[in-house]
């Protein structure tokens, strides 16, 4: 077929390319390699349409209950949900390839209008290795990210909109979509669950602030003092202070739990033996005391890291600045508040935000130290104890109570709260600002 080179055939090219992937490449542009590739994609997709449609229907209905069948043959809603989301990802990739094929046909025609000749296959090979190499190079990584990151994330969010909980566990029973019912139960409902969520969320907030700031300022003050003293002894103390960081936190938390035990705990027995207290202190026994203990033990485990961090940033502060301040008659305290603190803060703010996010999800510090105990008023229904933070509650909801839907709602809400901080943090990094990301 003869192709006018005055751009008058652009519409025709577009229409043919949109009707069937690669059609314009084959018919008009004589770009056979690309055309066959695109056409092959389309044919494979069309070949799979029956099963794709079946999977999509399954995704919408999530299977129907068949109590008369043996368990192995019943519909498994969760597999249907995962399959459906995978199929959606495949469709998204297909749409992207379709869009690229139409664009490619358009650009091919423009190129033809400009040069007046068709691209030969050698040119095509050059583009594949040159201009469009990033597409080929990144395609495997993108597919990996979609399959192993995006699909599981979408799945765990999707669970928040189902009734996947005790009594609705496949393959015995099927799961159904319930819309925003779980959100309404947990957020708006005036019942035990919403009270429990409010209590746990507030404590999570308090915990996050206290855990981060005690560790940060504890480490900072120790670092400042370390710089004050004799530098032959300082490394000894530095070594001692970093020790908790070297012990696996699971081990140290379990040991603390043993030491602080209300009746057999070594701390209580020691204090009683030296006569400081008459009766055992319930370190982990009443909610307020347990919360304070959690923060203190977390300070024990975490201040060493921030001490090293602050020491590192403080060595970066030039000695000249301190000297100048000294000559101008500034006291030690003034030097600290006016020079050291601002410079160290400026350097470590991104790390504080990271530590915030870490402490919101600090599963180990709570779960292994207190296991969420002591129980409070709503614990019999919600299983959330006095020191449970949201993540440990999620763990109990899924493993003990099998309320995957509520757990997923909470996970979604943690994400909504944390994501802005993370984006802000990322946008403030040097790498992002200087455009290398």
């Amino acid at each position: 077929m003869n192709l006018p080179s005055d751009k008058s055939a652009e519409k025709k090219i577009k229409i043919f390319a949109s009707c069937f992937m690669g059609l314009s490449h084959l018919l008009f542009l004589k770009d056979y390699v690309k055309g066959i590739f695109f056409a092959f994609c389309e044919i494979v997709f069309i070949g799979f349409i029956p099963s794709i449609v079946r999977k999509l229907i399954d995704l919408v209905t999530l299977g129907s209950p068949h109590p008369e069948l043996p368990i192995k043959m019943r519909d498994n809603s969760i597999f249907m949900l995962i399959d459906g989301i995978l199929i959606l990802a495949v469709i998204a990739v297909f749409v992207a390839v379709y869009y690229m094929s139409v664009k490619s046909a358009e650009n091919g025609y423009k190129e033809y209008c400009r040069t007046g000749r068709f691209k030969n296959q050698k040119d095509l090979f050059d583009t594949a290795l040159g201009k469009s190499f990033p597409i080929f190079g990144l395609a495997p990584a993108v597919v990996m990210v979609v399959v192993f990151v995006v699909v599981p994330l979408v799945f765990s969010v999707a669970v928040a909109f189902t009734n996947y909980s005790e009594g609705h566990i496949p393959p015995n029973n099927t799961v159904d979509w319930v819309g925003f019912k779980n959100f309404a139960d947990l957020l708006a409902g005036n019942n035990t669950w919403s009270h429990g969520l409010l209590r746990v969320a507030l404590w999570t907030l308090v915990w996050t602030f206290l855990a981060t700031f005690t560790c940060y300022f504890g480490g900072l003050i120790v670092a400042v003092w370390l710089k004050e003293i004799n530098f032959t002894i300082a490394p000894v103390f530095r070594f001692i202070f970093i020790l908790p960081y070297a012990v696996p936190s699971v081990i140290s938390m379990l040991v603390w739990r043993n030491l602080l035990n209300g009746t057999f705990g070594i701390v209580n027995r020691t204090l009683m033996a030296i006569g400081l207290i008459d009766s055992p202190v319930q370190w982990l026994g009443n909610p307020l005391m347990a919360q304070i203990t959690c923060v203190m033990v977390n300070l024990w485990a975490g201040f060493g890291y921030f001490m090293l961090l602050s020491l590192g940033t403080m060595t970066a502060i030039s000695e000249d600045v301190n000297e100048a301040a000294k000559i101008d008659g500034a006291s030690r305290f003034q030097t600290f508040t006016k020079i050291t603190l601002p410079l160290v803060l400026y350097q470590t703010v991104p790390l504080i935000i990271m530590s915030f996010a870490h402490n919101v999800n600090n599963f180990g510090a709570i779960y292994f130290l207190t296991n969420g105990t002591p129980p409070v008023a709503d614990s019999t229904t919600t299983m959330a104890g006095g020191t449970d933070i949201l993540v440990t509650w999620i763990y109990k909801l899924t493993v003990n109570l099998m309320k995957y839907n509520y757990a997923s709602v909470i996970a979604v809400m943690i994400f909504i709260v944390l994501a802005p901080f993370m984006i802000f943090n990322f946008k403030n990094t040097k790498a992002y600002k200087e455009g290398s990301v």
Partner: protein
Amino acid sequence: MRDSDKNGSKNAKGIKQINYVRFAENLNKTTIYLIFLVISFFVIYPLVYIVSGAFTPGNSMASMNILPFSDGFTLEHFVYLFTRTDYAKIR
């Protein structure tokens, strides 16, 4: 030090000032050492129990004496770990 440079002519007063500054500095350092010793105690305290628990006969930390390493010394837990359980087996 710089105070003594400034008041070079008034030597006696300068020396007094130096003594005062040295005293303050020493006091400062001693306080820091004391605080560090207290912190070190709290930091090492549980770690000592982790280690002593490994060498103490018996099966429970709750029944340990309040003084670490005062219940006797045994390697039976290590022997148990490497011979009776699968942790030491490569396959």
